[in-house]
C-alpha cells in the first residue's frame, strides 16, 4: 500500500493515484520517417527494470496532475518524486545483488528471509 507524495498535494494513499507506465518515453515527432521497428519501440518496448524505474503517476482523485516518480521495483521504495519537465534526479537504491538475486526484502527466495550466520543487524534502509 504505497504512500505517495504528490508534488502538488503532499502524501496520499495509492488509492488516489493512477499509474501511467514508464516515464521519459517521448512521443516521436517525426513518426513519418520512423522505421516500423522504432515505432514499435515507442509503442511497446519497455525497460521494465528490477531496480530503479522512472514512472508516471497521475493524482487522479486529487489535483489530476501527472508527475514522475523514481521507485525501486525490487523493494517498492519510493526514491524521488518530481514534476513533469524536471530532470530525473540522481538517487541511490538498495539494488538486487547476487547470490540470491534479490534486494534485502527480496522476492521468492529463502536467503532474503533469514540472516546468514554472522550477518550484521541494524536496519537496512
Amino acid at each position: 500500500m504505497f504512500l505517495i507524495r504528490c508534488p502538488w498535494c503532499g502524501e496520499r494513499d495509492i488509492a488516489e493515484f493512477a499509474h501511467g507506465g514508464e516515464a521519459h518515453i517521448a512521443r516521436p515527432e517525426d513518426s513519418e520517417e520512423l522505421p516500423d521497428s522504432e515505432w514499435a519501440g515507442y509503442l511497446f518496448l519497455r525497460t521494465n527494470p528490477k531496480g530503479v524505474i522512472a514512472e508516471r503517476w497521475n493524482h487522479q482523485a486529487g489535483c489530476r496532475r501527472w508527475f514522475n516518480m523514481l521507485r525501486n521495483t525490487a523493494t517498492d521504495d519510493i526514491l524521488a518524486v518530481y514534476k513533469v519537465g524536471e530532470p530525473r534526479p540522481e538517487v541511490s537504491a538498495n539494488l538486487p545483488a547476487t547470490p540470491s538475486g534479490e534486494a534485502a526484502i527480496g522476492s521468492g527466495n529463502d536467503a532474503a528471509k533469514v540472516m546468514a550466520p554472522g550477518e550484521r543487524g541494524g536496519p537496512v534502509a
Partner: protein
Amino acid sequence: MQRYNVVSLIREGLRGHAGWQPAWRFPEPKASYDAVIIGGGGHGLATAYYLAKEHGLRDIAVIEKGWIGGGNSGRNTTVIRSNYLNDESAAIYQHALDLWKTLGRELDYNIMMSHRGVLNLAHDEGEARQLKRRVEANRLNGVDSEWLEPEDVKEFCPPISISPAARYPVIGATLQRSGGTNRHDAVVWGYARAADSMGVDIIQQCEVTNIVVEGGAVTGVETTRGKISTRRVGCVTAGHTSVIAAMLGLKLPIESHPLQALVSEPVKPILPCVVMSNAVHVYVSQSDKGELVIGAGIDPYVSYTQRGSLDIIEHQMAALVELFPVFARLRMMRQWGGIVDVCPDASPIISDTPVGGFFINGGWGTGGWKATPASGHAFADLVARGEPNAIAAPFTLERFTTGALVAEHGAAAVAH
C-alpha cells in the same frame, strides 16, 4: 523411474516407506550442456521434459534460482481452460488442454486434473455479445464452449447469486465443461521427476548472473555455481523475463506486475466449478482440500516484490461477496503475490531473438499456467529446431513490429 501406484504404496506401507527413491537428483552443474533452460517452473521443466522426450536432447540442464515451482507455478490459481477468442490462441490453449487430459498418467504423477467446468459470467449486454462471439469462435475451432442463461448458471453453480437487483446482475455465462483446475505442485514435481529420469540435470539454488555471447550468438551462461558452456539457452522465467533479457541488452514488450491471490479456510464442498467475472473482477474455485482459491486483477505498477496492495484484496472480497453472498462469513487464510509478465496484447511471447541461440518463452501475463504443457511442447520444438512451429509462430516478437497482435484482452481481462 520408480512406478507410483496403489501396489507400491501398500508395499512401502508395510515396510515403513523405506524404499521410496528421490523424485529427482541434486546434481552439480556440468561444465557444458547441449542446452540450458533458465527457470525451473512448470513451463521450464515442461520444456526440458519435451526436449528430452521428443527431441532426444538429454544433455540439458534446468537452472533454478530458488526451489523448483517456487515462482508463479507455486503461486497461481491453476485455472485450466482454452476458450480464447483468436484462432492462434485457441490453437495453443486447446493443445495444452488436450495434453493436460492425459498428463497425469504420462508422468506417472497424479496432477489432480479436474475437468469441473469453467464459467465466464456476463453482466451486461456488451459483455454478453463478446462472450457469445467467443463461444461461436470456440465452437468452430473445436473448443468446447456453450452459452448459459442465468437459470442454467444457477443450476450449474448453486451458491452464485443471479439476483437481477445486483449492481452487476448475472445475465448469462459461457461454460467450458472440459475446463477446470489441477494441482500446481504436482505438475511441477511430475515434470521434474520425469525429466530427471531421462537424464535432465535440475539444478536448484543456482542463479544465472550473465549470459555469454560471442559473435552474436550464445556460448554459455555464468551462474552463482560457475560457468556453463552451451550454444542454446531457453529463457523461461516469466515475471523476470525482462531481467534476463537485459543481460543481453534486449528490451521487450513486457511489464512485470504484481498479481495477488488468496485462499479461504478449508470448508466442505460448496463450489462445484470455476467462476470468473471480468466486470466485477474476481475469479474463484474450490481446491480439493476445501479452500476457496480466489484471484483478481493485477496491481497497475511494475514491481518485483511479489506482493501487492491490500485495497486490491478488499475490492476482490467485495466482488466475491456480491457474487456469492453465502461466502461472506468465510475467512481469508492466506494471501500472496506473484510477478506476471504482461504483454500489450495479453498474449505470450514464444520467440527467437536477435541473439543467436537465445530463445524466450514468457509474457504469459495472468494466464500462463493453463498453457504449461503446450508452452513447453512448442518451446522445446523452437529450442531444438531453431524456428517456431505452427503453434508458436503467431507469438514471436516480430508481431510487435508488424502490428499483427493477438489481442486477447476480452479473454484474458481478469487474471487467471
